[in-house]
């Protein structure tokens, strides 16, 4: 129970503080709206019809990935810059339970993206907002956010080992948008991209949202999101342990 309380309190705190950041509002609302508009115009000008809800959901998920990537990728470095990393590690709860709420919060902020692109599409591009399977959609949404948040944990605990984590974040935004099929069918991409897409939660998350919103059975994709979330948690746990041990051995916790 105390674990859940810690995660809940940490998540609430970080969601509130991220909401105050202009950068995050841009990443989460304005950037997805711009990309969604570009995509709407491209699909309207193109020959493929009936895909605007597909685009709206994909553009929203692009925003969730961006906020997770930039928020979680630099999460530990940010604590270091703020001078709070030592406290985060010294507190009685495991470091994992201190970082997980933060990475979950960065993914949660991405929900602004999805809401913004759906609303934008509905207002200006006549995107239909009817959901074929509301029950599956309501389940798919938080499961997707948690899946991405836990992927954020892997990013947070691995990027910290690389000095220029922000450059890595800049590099990884477009490739994951592409490789997870957010706006492009994976069948168009080279075959070797397939296995990469399977281990990325956004692939299953967006499929779950599309299946539940448009038609079809979303539950297998929801299950894959849960499974991948569990795998990310385990990987993140070991990476954080590795980072913590290295930082203690080399006395680099407070180095900026």
């Amino acid at each position, binding site marked *: 129970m105390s674990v859940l309380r810690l995660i809940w309190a940490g998540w609430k705190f970080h969601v509130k503080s991220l909401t105050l950041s*202009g950068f995050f509002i841009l990443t989460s609302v304005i950037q997805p709206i711009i990309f969604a508009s570009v995509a709407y115009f491209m699909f309207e000008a193109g020959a493929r019809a009936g895909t605007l809800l597909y685009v709206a959901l994909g553009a929203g998920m692009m925003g969730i990935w961006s906020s997770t990537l930039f928020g979680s990728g630099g999460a530990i470095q940010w604590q270091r810059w703020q001078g709070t990393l030592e406290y985060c590690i010294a507190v009685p709860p495991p470091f994992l339970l201190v970082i997980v709420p933060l990475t979950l919060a960065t993914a949660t902020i991405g929900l602004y993206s999805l809401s913004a692109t759906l609303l934008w599409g509905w207002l200006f591009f006549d995107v239909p907002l009817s959901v074929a399977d509301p029950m599956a959609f309501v389940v798919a949404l938080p499961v997707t956010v948690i899946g991405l948040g836990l992927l954020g944990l892997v990013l947070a605990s691995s990027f910290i080992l690389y000095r220029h984590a922000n450059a890595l974040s800049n590099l990884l935004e*477009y490739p994951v948008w592409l490789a997870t099929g957010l706006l492009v069918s994976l069948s168009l991409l080279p075959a070797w991209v397939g296995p990469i897409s399977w281990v990325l939660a956004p692939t299953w998350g967006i499929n779950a949202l599309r299946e539940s919103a448009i038609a079809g059975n979303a539950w297998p994709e929801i299950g894959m999101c849960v499974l991948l979330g569990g795998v990310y948690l385990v990987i993140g746990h070991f990476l954080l342990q590795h980072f913590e041990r290295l930082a203690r051995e080399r006395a680099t916790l407070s180095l900026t």
Partner: protein
Amino acid sequence: MTNLRIFFIGGYISYRALFNWMAPALYIPTMLGAPIFQILFFAYIGRYAQVQNDEFFVVGNAVQLSAMAGIYGMAMTIGGERWTQTLSQLMATPANRLPLFLGRALPLIANGIITSAFAFAVGWLLLDVTIGAEQLPALGVVVAVSAFACTSLGLVIGALGLRARDVFFLANLVVFSLLLFCGVNIPLDSMPGWIQAVGRALPLTHGIEAAREIADGASLSEVSDLVWTEFFIGAAYAAGAFVLFKLFELEGRRRASFETI
């Protein structure tokens, strides 16, 4: 002579500080890695949506990428001074402001050209794009003019950095907006009239149009109207930026706001 020194040496030192030239680990992913995926991303959306061909997206994005260094760089050159608390000292120097800030812009224009050339090379290597070798010099001129125009827009953002605290937010917004308004990935004539009107007043739009015509075989003289329009738009933004620099410098001194973070 002093002004020339400020222009060249000051610009060079500022650029090294800005992009950390000597750290490939930072430079390569940001300035060369991300552009590859931007081009692939939009080219594949184009294929999926069945709109235009690969060349359309390679040319549009390669020219647009010349804006990245100029806009982010100029925003950071002022925002970075504020962040490191050196803006007051900079404003206290007797140096002429024109060479001081234009000197910082020159390496960014060169950087934009390099990024754009790399993006064209990527398009040629990875996608279905063939541009004749005889078209490259004309394409180089168009990219250079577009990089200049975008860096001028970056100068405006940098000038706003004398007044606004979070200029990075604005720089991000402008770079993303260029994707929408300048016909980078969508034929401009298929957009609503007001978007076309805004696009025509921004850098890039005419440069991209000229680059597409050159890629299709036109000569530089045949697109000279577009290139000159792009140049004059850039010059207008540069002049506007200079006025803003003077205005906000006076305002910053009066309000003692150069050290506000």
